[in-house]
């Protein structure tokens, strides 16, 4: 996979090749690829001259550094109690129906992954979700249908 090799090299050129560069490089891979494959981890280990186990251990510690294949758009719905109280379960059901997947799964066309996450820091405007890095708040049936619909049309 020459693209991964190149991406890792570019990221290492930008962030450096020491231990402190590891997290920014892994974050950079997720931004580009949505997840960190085994090949990518091995490549990072080689480029930074550290053990692959060390890279794996660090990557798997962080919930946003996905090591399983993810869709182009990763949806993370907040599951903390205040969002739950404002109707998060209903929102989850709507997204599951729209994308025809269950939470934790990726659509067959690899466009969407649906996940739950801990507090997103929008408790006064729940329910809230992130789609990649963008935050959406005060979700209700109409709003979430429109947002997901827009994404589905534009992939």
């Amino acid at each position, binding site marked *: 996979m020459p693209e991964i090799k190149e991406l890792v090299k570019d990221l290492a050129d930008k962030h450096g090749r*020491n*231990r*402190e*560069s*590891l*997290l*920014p490089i*892994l*974050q950079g891979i*997720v931004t580009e690829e949505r997840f960190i494959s085994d090949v990518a981890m091995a490549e990072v280990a080689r480029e930074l001259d550290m053990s692959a186990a060390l890279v794996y*251990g*660090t990557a798997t*510690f*962080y*919930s*946003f*550094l996905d090591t399983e294949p993810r869709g182009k758009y990763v949806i993370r719905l907040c*599951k*903390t*109690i*205040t969002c*739950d*109280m404002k109707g998060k379960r209903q929102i989850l059901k709507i997204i599951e129906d729209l994308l025809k997947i269950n939470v934790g799964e990726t659509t067959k066309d690899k466009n969407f992954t649906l996940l739950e*996450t*801990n*507090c*997103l*820091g*929008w*408790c*006064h*405007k*729940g329910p809230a979700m*992130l789609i990649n*890095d*963008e*935050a959406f708040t005060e979700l209700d049936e109409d709003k979430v249908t429109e947002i997901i619909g827009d994404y589905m049309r534009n992939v």
Partner: protein
Amino acid sequence: MPNKKLKRVDIIFSEDCVYKDVLTDGLKKSNEAILKEILDSGLRGRGGAGFPTGLKWKFTSQETEEEKYVVCNADEGEPGTFKDREILTRVPLKVFGGMAICAKVIGAKHGYIYLRGEYQFLRADLDKAIEEFHAYLKEIGFDFQIHILMGSGAYICGEESALFESMEGKRGEPRNKPPYPTISGFRNKPTVINNVETLVYAFMICRIGAGKFQELGTTDSRGSKVFSISGDTPIAGIYELELGMLLEDFVEEFGDGDTKAVQVGGASGFCVPRKKFKDTIIGFEGVPTGGSMMLFNSSRSMYNVLKNYVEFFEEESCGQCTPCRVGCQQLKKGIEAIKKGEKSAHYLDTLQKLADTMKVTSKCGLGQSVANSFSSIVDNFKEEMIY
């Protein structure tokens, strides 16, 4: 102890303040004068733990190492807290100003903001603000640079030593303490690590003076604090309030008329039931909070609330020490088994003992504070846990 009436305050977001003026004046003062001001103000950390800010600065300033750092903890992850996002959105330059003044006092050339991954969308605006700030520092000839490092969705990284580990590119596992950050923090160098809000207060104290800040609050809890109010309230949002108010007055102002309990301080804080509202002071002498105030009315099941918190801790435990890793799992399994009738109600006592054990044996604040919400919810809403 005399409590304070609920009072709204406008210090943090106050627009009647030009950051450049405050910064230039602040940087002209002697380190001793600034330290005295911060110490006299009685300012304590606004992230939750409440360590006196002036002491952190003083201890770090006394270290003789050449390399020192200022770190701004913007890994706001406590359920129910969203004030740091608001502060970073509305008054980022005041945060940087607090960092620069701290840097002058302790002798640091570099400051770092550790921003949680969930707030990546703030990044572009923050980068722009930092550019503006750096340009001004250059103009006045003050040698200090601010950098942003991103988190990646790990609550534990809000714990200061885990945050340093993460900044160093490692798993965010808390370190043993001592040594404390003032001696050995980021890169094992003397480091001041302050919450976003604390840095703004420190900056504003340089402007309004310790005396003015001290007039607010109580002996143990000086000044005001930004509260993140959510749950069953018609007016959820961010409010800056004087510390030391009674929870009763708070509920009167923010409740929906049917408030059954308030979770003060997030999942790692305490649940206060209605009957204790009138005896509970919000502050370090009563129930402290990093800002999170979640209100629950009588339609809510406190079992669901507790289960949500325990699941949260089970997921976010870093897994490094056994009491926290296994304890969180067992607490969750335990309350589920009682609810299903697979275990008798007496099993709750066993779980309480487990929570107490976690409090004394866990390595860091995460495992130590699980017992806060667990015991306060189970004690006050026992029947809801069983039936």
